[in-house]
């Protein structure tokens, strides 16, 4: 078991290294002078010389790569030209919004997708099954940004004045700015490191609202996140529903399911305990793979719903041609993606006893 975990961790090291190499090559492939590409056309010669010296751009290419890797390992991504702040600060400010959106979207796609898939498999070829599969096919074919805009149109404009009206932008209603939970709790934090961690957590609005006991703020934040989460979660939802269905159909046809039926187990118990557990494995893989889709969806959706998260900053950086942000966010998200997939792989240990025995 430990060898399995160790082997998986070791095998992701070359991939991480490869990610660094690819982003390094991409950064060096920017046409023209790297300094002016990074710092802007107006950078003076003195500033450029300093920049080139600091990043070792006058050294051999392999040394440059070494410097690049150590800078990233230290968490130093440089400073954004557009925002005038270190990239790391920007990330810690923006990441909570995206995390909240991703978790909400994930929750939506899992808690709706899996039950739909189960019902479709158990009632194969019924109206529910056909309906689910039609919706799933349409779901994976929809552009995320279009769905987002259409949801905003329907729920903010067409349904205005009805109880179903939902806010189309922002994270909280104007005027609401809850204090961070550690301030409300009266904690006196002096350590800079701890303070940034607490700040990061307090920027997760829904969690912060619970921690300070303000259910009205939680509800407001929840209402704001519904539309973007549905937009981001629809494609993964369609994939999850399809996968649950086919995986459940495979399991339902096995001999032990017949045994379970023959010995007279209640239907619900058969499906939930005997079938679903064994159908989960391919599902975990699919959920792991959809993380990319969640992140890509966040880039497209945050702009539409006016959420200042990682996706939005990436969009602004693209428009402003702020290479440093594009490059460092790409690296960080790719590393995040590899680590999450590693966790998915390790979770097989608990889901599939056969992996443990190997």
């Amino acid at each position, binding site marked *: 078991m430990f060898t399995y975990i160790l082997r998986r961790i070791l095998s992701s090291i*070359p*991939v991480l290294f*490869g*990610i660094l*190499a*690819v*982003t390094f090559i*991409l*950064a060096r*492939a*920017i*046409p023209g002078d790297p300094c002016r590409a990074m710092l802007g056309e107006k950078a003076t010669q003195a500033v450029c010389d300093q920049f080139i010296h600091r990043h070792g751009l006058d050294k051999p290419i392999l040394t440059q790569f070494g410097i690049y890797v150590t800078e990233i390992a230290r968490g130093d991504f440089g400073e954004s030209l557009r925002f005038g702040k270190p990239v790391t600060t920007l990330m810690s400010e923006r990441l909570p919004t995206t995390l909240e959106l991703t978790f909400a979207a994930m929750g939506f796609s899992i808690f709706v997708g899996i039950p739909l898939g189960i019902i479709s498999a158990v009632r194969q070829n019924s109206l529910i099954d056909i309906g689910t599969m039609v919706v799933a*096919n*349409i779901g*994976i*074919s*929809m*552009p*995320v*940004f*279009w*769905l987002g*805009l*259409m949801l*905003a*149109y329907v729920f*903010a*404009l067409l349904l205005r004045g009805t109880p179903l009206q939902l806010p189309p932008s922002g994270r909280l209603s104007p005027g609401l700015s809850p204090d961070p939970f550690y301030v409300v709790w009266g904690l006196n934090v002096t350590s800079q490191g701890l303070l940034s961690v607490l700040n990061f957590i307090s920027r997760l609005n829904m969690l912060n609202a619970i921690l300070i006991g303000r259910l009205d703020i939680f509800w407001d934040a929840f209402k704001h996140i519904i539309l973007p989460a549905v937009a981001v979660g629809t494609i993964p939802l369609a994939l999850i529903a399809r996968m649950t269905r086919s995986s459940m159909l495979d399991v339902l046809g096995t001999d032990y399911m017949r045994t379970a039926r023959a010995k007279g187990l209640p239907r619900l118990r058969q499906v939930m305990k005997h079938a679903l557990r064994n159908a989960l494995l391919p599902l975990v893989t699919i959920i792991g793979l959809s*993380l*990319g*889709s969640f*992140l*890509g969806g966040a*880039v*497209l959706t945050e702009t*539409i719903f006016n959420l200042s998260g990682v996706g939005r900053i*990436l*969009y602004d950086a*693209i*428009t402003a*041609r702020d*290479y440093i942000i*594009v*490059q460092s966010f*790409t690296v960080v*998200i*790719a590393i995040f*993606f*590899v680590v999450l997939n590693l966790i998915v792989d390790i979770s097989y240990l608990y889901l599939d006893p056969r992996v443990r025995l190997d």
Partner: protein
Amino acid sequence: MSDVTKSKTTGQVRILDAEKLSTEKPVTLWGTARRRLFRRKSAILGIVILGILVIIAIFAPWLAPYDPQEVLIGIEKVRVRQAPCIHLLGCPADQPQHIMGTDGNVRDEFSRMLFGARLSLIIGFTTVTFAIIIGTVLGALAGYLGGWVDNVIMRFMDVLLAFPSLLLAIAIVTILGPGLINALLAIGIVSIPAYARVTRSAVLTTREMEFVEASRSLGGSTLYILFGRILPNSMTPLIVQGTLGIATAILDAAALSFLGLGAQPPTPEWGSMLSAERNQVFTAPYLVFYPGLAIMLVVLSFNLLGDGLRDALDPRLAMRTK
């Protein structure tokens, strides 16, 4: 003389008999696949939607009532973002007909939509062709040669797959500079690993088959065996992957255009048309609705066709129904 005729006739009779005997057509992979494909309603729906889109794409210049890039100010009595006006549905006859209204630059939205079909299909086919050619060669070499070649190629593919695909495409286009060609290149590069993987695994299974061994013992060169013998016999998974890949490529290209990295105005591309009018979603929703719907339909058609092909070309399933 009469004998000859007679023998001729009998001969003909014999030939006819022989033809009668062999009337049952041989079972071929493509024949079975076609029959199985047409048995699926969803695949037929995909083919029908795709067929309509192809017709629209080919005949766009004749179908479109206006030039897709013509600004109608001063030519007609229309306003910016004029709501759809259809004479049959009660729009006053003195007002020019614009089925889908006019856009922010007073161009006929319907004509632009028709021309968009062209671009969308071209985008799908070119990126996937590019990715298939490179991916197939890489995957075939990796699978057939094995050893360090396999290791180097496939580890590199793993690295490309480690990035969320849209994000890597964004990073590539940001560096190459925005534009349709660069966006296509980026999407092409990002989708190479999928084809390399599919080809590699197909080659690995085909490599050990007897007809390959026969070809090798006849002295066929490595290149001939690989591209003349093995690859044609590993085509089916590639066709399925390619069809589904077109769907993804069109979606990604639309997303890049939406972010301003793909097709640039005034090109009538659905993603950038939608992007240009996205702030008008509350005032002129039709300018956002139609391009998105069109993207969805073209992607849906390739997805349905791809799913159908996957089931139709799966030899295990084909056996069962035979």
